[in-house]
C-alpha cells in the first residue's frame, strides 16, 4: 500500500497540472476576441467561449447542444442548417455566412469557419470553429453594390462606359458595353494593348500619344479621338480619367470614362462649317449681321460688320459707337430710325451712309426683322449690306445719263439753233443780196426799175420764206401732234419717282407722296406729262441744294381741285422766290440757277397748255415754293391706287417711309 500514496500524489499533481493547463487554455479561449466553439460530429454544440456567450447573451446551458440555433436569424436558419450539414458530411474545412442575434436583439453578420478534428485512427471526433463579425464588411459590400448599380445606371444614361484597365497585363477583359464603343461584338476583344492600338484611327494617334504624355505629367487623361470600327466606320470617342504609372514611368493602369461623342462631333463640325460658310458668305456679299436687344441696348455684331464699319472686332458695340460712324447728314435719320424701332415692333428697312475716318463714304442698306426672344423681349435681327460699289456705279450711271441727257439737250438746242440759223440765213442772205442789188439798180443811170422790181419781189418772197421757217420750227418744238391716251397721273408720278429715286437720294431729298385715291384719269401724252413732273421734281431738288438746317423734303400731291380738274403739286422746302419773279420763271431761258437752262418751265407750261390746263407757282407759308398744274379729267374714270417699289399709297395720308 505504500505505492498508492505516491501514485495518488502523482495523479493529484498531474491532475492539478492538467487543471491548470486546462484553465490556462480556457482563459486563452475565453480571451481571444473571436467567437470560438466546438461541436460534436452530429453537429450539436459542445463548447462555446465566453465571447460567444456574451454576444448572444445566453448561458452555456442555454446554447449547448442545439440551443445555439435560437440565435440564428429566422431567414438564414434553413440555409445554415443545410450548409452545416454539407460541411459535416464533407468532413473538410468549411465556411459560411449567417446572421446571429446579439443580446440586445440586433442581428449581425458572421462568417463561421469549421475545422474537423480527427483521432489517431483518422476518425472525425470533433469540430472546432470560430465566428468572425463581418457586418461592416457586408454593409460596405452592399453599399458598393448599390453604388455599382447607380454607376451602371449613370453610365447607361450618360452613354459613357467606365473602365479600369491594367495596361501592362497581357489580358484585359472588357465589358460588352466597352466593346460596343469600339463596334466589337461582345467577347471579341482580346484584351491586348496591341489590338487596342490597332483600333485607333491613325491620324488621331498623335493626339492620343500627347494625351498620354500629358497624363504622365498631371495624372489626368483627357482626349478625344477617333476609332475605326470593324466595318470601317469612324467614331469619335471621348475619354476622361486618371492614369497610373509604375516605377519605370510606364503606364500601369488607367481608370476613367469613355463615351461615344460622334454625334456631338458631327454637330460641332456642321456648326463650324455653317459658321465658316456664313462668315464667308457675309464676306463675299459684303453683308454683316447684328442683333439688338432693345430694352437692354445689347448689340452683337458679326465679324463682317466690324469690317464694314472698320472697327476693332472685339470692341463692345454701343449705339453711340455706331453714331460716330454715321454720316453727319444721316444722323437725324438715324435718330428717327432708333426712336421708331424702339416704339414699334415692325420690320424696317433703312439706307444710310457712313463717314469713315479717311473721309470716304460708304453706303449701307440695312434690313431688320423684329422678333421676341424667350422672355418676350423685343429683339431685332438685321442684315446690313455694303452697297457702296453698287451705289457708286449706279450714281455714276445716273450721272452719265444725266450728263448725256444734258448734252443731248444742249446738243439738240445747238443743233436746233444751227438748224434755225441755217434755215433763216438762207432767205436772209437772199434778202440782203437782193436789197443791195435793188439799190444799185435804182442808182444806175437810167435806173433799172424792172430789175429793181424783180429784186423787191424776191425780197418779199424770201421774207415769207424766213417766216415760214420760224413757224415750222415752233411747230416742231411744241409738238402739236402729241399722243392722246388715258393717263393715270398717280401711276405716272410713281414711275417718275421710281426712276429718279437715286438722283433724289443723292441730293438728300426725301420725297413724300400724298396721292389721292379717287383721282380721275386724264387724256394726254403720258411721256410729256412725266417730263413736266420730272422737271418740277428736279427744280424742287435744285431749290433745296443749299438747305442744311431742315429735312430736304419734297411733297408731291395729287387731288381734285375746286373746278373738278386733276391737280398735281410739287412743294419744296427751298429758299423760295421773290413774288415778282414768280411769273418770270416761266419765260423761256429765264433762270436763277448758276448753270443749266430754265427752258424746262417754259416747255412744261407749253405742254400743260397743250393739255388744256395751266401751270403756276405759289410761295409756301413756311418757305419754299409749290409748283402746280391742273388739267381736265375724264368724267367717270378713277385712277388706281397701286403700290410701286414698296411705297404704299394710302388715302390722302402721307406715308412716310424712307425711300
Amino acid at each position, binding site marked *: 500500500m505504500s505505492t498508492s500514496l505516491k501514485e495518488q500524489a502523482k495523479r493529484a499533481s498531474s491532475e492539478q497540472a492538467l487543471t491548470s493547463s486546462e484553465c490556462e487554455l480556457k482563459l486563452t479561449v475565453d480571451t481571444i476576441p473571436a467567437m470560438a466553439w466546438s461541436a460534436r460530429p452530429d453537429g450539436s454544440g459542445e463548447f462555446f467561449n465566453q465571447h460567444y456567450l456574451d454576444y448572444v447573451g445566453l448561458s452555456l446551458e442555454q446554447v449547448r447542444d442545439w440551443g445555439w440555433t435560437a440565435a440564428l436569424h429566422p431567414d438564414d436558419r434553413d440555409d445554415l442548417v443545410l450548409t452545416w450539414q454539407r460541411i459535416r458530411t464533407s468532413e473538410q474545412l468549411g465556411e459560411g455566412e449567417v446572421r446571429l442575434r446579439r443580446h440586445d436583439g440586433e442581428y449581425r453578420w458572421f462568417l463561421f469557419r469549421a475545422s474537423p478534428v480527427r483521432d489517431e485512427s483518422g476518425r472525425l471526433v470533433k469540430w472546432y470553429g470560430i465566428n468572425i463579425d463581418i457586418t461592416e464588411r457586408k454593409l460596405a459590400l452592399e453599399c458598393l453594390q448599390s453604388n455599382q448599380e447607380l454607376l451602371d445606371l449613370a453610365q447607361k444614361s450618360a452613354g459613357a462606359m467606365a473602365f479600369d484597365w491594367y495596361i501592362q497585363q497581357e489580358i484585359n477583359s472588357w465589358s460588352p458595353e466597352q466593346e460596343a464603343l469600339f463596334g466589337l461584338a461582345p467577347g471579341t476583344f482580346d484584351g491586348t494593348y496591341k489590338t487596342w492600338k490597332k483600333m485607333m484611327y491613325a491620324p488621331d494617334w498623335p493626339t492620343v500619344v500627347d494625351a498620354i504624355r500629358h497624363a504622365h505629367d498631371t495624372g489626368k487623361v483627357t482626349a478625344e479621338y477617333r476609332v475605326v470600327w470593324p466595318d470601317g466606320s469612324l467614331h469619335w470617342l471621348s475619354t476622361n480619367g486618371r492614369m497610373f504609372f509604375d516605377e519605370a514611368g510606364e503606364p500601369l493602369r488607367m481608370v476613367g470614362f469613355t463615351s461615344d461623342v460622334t454625334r456631338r462631333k458631327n454637330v460641332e463640325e456642321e456648326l463650324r462649317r455653317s459658321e465658316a460658310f456664313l462668315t464667308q458668305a457675309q464676306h463675299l456679299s459684303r453683308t454683316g449681321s447684328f442683333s439688338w436687344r432693345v430694352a437692354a441696348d445689347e448689340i452683337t455684331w458679326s465679324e463682317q460688320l466690324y469690317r464694314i464699319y472698320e472697327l476693332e472686332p472685339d470692341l463692345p458695340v454701343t449705339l453711340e459707337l455706331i453714331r460716330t460712324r454715321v454720316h453727319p447728314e444721316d444722323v437725324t435719320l438715324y435718330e428717327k430710325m432708333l426712336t421708331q424701332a424702339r416704339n414699334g415692333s415692325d420690320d424696317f428697312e433703312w439706307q444710310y451712309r457712313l463717314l469713315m475716318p479717311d473721309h470716304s463714304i460708304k453706303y449701307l442698306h440695312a434690313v431688320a426683322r423684329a422678333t421676341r426672344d424667350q422672355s418676350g423681349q423685343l429683339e431685332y435681327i438685321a442684315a446690313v449690306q455694303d452697297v457702296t460699289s453698287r451705289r457708286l456705279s449706279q450714281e455714276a450711271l445716273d450721272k452719265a445719263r444725266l450728263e448725256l441727257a444734258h448734252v443731248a439737250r444742249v446738243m439738240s438746242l445747238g443743233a436746233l439753233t*444751227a438748224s434755225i*440759223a*441755217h434755215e433763216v*440765213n*438762207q*432767205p*436772209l*442772205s*437772199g*434778202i*440782203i*443780196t*437782193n436789197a*443791195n*442789188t435793188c439799190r*444799185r*439798180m435804182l442808182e*444806175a443811170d437810167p435806173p433799172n426799175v424792172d*430789175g429793181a422790181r*424783180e*429784186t423787191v419781189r*424776191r425780197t418779199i*418772197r*424770201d421774207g415769207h*420764206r424766213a417766216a415760214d421757217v420760224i413757224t415750222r420750227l415752233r411747230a416742231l418744238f411744241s409738238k402739236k401732234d402729241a399722243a392722246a391716251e388715258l393717263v393715270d397721273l398717280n401711276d405716272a408720278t410713281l414711275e417718275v419717282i421710281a426712276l429718279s429715286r437715286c438722283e433724289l437720294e443723292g441730293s438728300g431729298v426725301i420725297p413724300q407722296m400724298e396721292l389721292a385715291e379717287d383721282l380721275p384719269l386724264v387724256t394726254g401724252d403720258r411721256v410729256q406729262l412725266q417730263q413736266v413732273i420730272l422737271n418740277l421734281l428736279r427744280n424742287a431738288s435744285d431749290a433745296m441744294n443749299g438747305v442744311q438746317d431742315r429735312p430736304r423734303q419734297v411733297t408731291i400731291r395729287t387731288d381734285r381741285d375746286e373746278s373738278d380738274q386733276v391737280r398735281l403739286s410739287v412743294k419744296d422746302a427751298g429758299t423760295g422766290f421773290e413774288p415778282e419773279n414768280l411769273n418770270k420763271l416761266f419765260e423761256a431761258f429765264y433762270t436763277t440757277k448758276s448753270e443749266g437752262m430754265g427752258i424746262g418751265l417754259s416747255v412744261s407750261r407749253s405742254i400743260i397748255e397743250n393739255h388744256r390746263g395751266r401751270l403756276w407757282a405759289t410761295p409756301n407759308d413756311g418757305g419754299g415754293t409749290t409748283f402746280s398744274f391742273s388739267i381736265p379729267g375724264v368724267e367717270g374714270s378713277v385712277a388706281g391706287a397701286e403700290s410701286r417699289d414698296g411705297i404704299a399709297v394710302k388715302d390722302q395720308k402721307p406715308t412716310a417711309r424712307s425711300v
Partner: protein
Amino acid sequence: MVNGPLISVVDDDESVRESLPDLLKEFGFSARAFSSAEEFLTSRYLSETKCLILDVAMPGLSGPDLQQELKRRQQDIPIVFITAHHDEHVRPRLIEQGAVECLFKPFSDSDLLEALNSALRQS
C-alpha cells in the same frame, strides 16, 4: 461792162442762185449760177470761170469736195466760199486748203466785192 470776168455761183439754195448773179452783174461781172458741184463740173463754163463763189454744205459733192476735185484736175480757180453755218472752225480750214475767203450768210456787198477783187488779183 458786158462780159466782165465770169464768176460762177454754185449753191443749192434758190434764193442765192436768184439774187447773187444780179448783184454780181451790178458789180460789172458776168455771172452764172449752178445748183450743184456736179452741174458745174460738167458745164462748158468750167474753164471760163475766173472765180467761183461756192456754198459749203450741199447735197452730193460739197463745196470742199469740189475744191479738192478742182485741185486734182489742176484747175486753178480761186474760190470764195459762202456758208449759212456760222462755225468758226470752218473758215481757217478752208483758207488753209487754198480758198481766198469764206463769207457767212448774210454777207454785205462790200465784203463780197473785196473777196472777189482779191480772188481775181490771184489769177
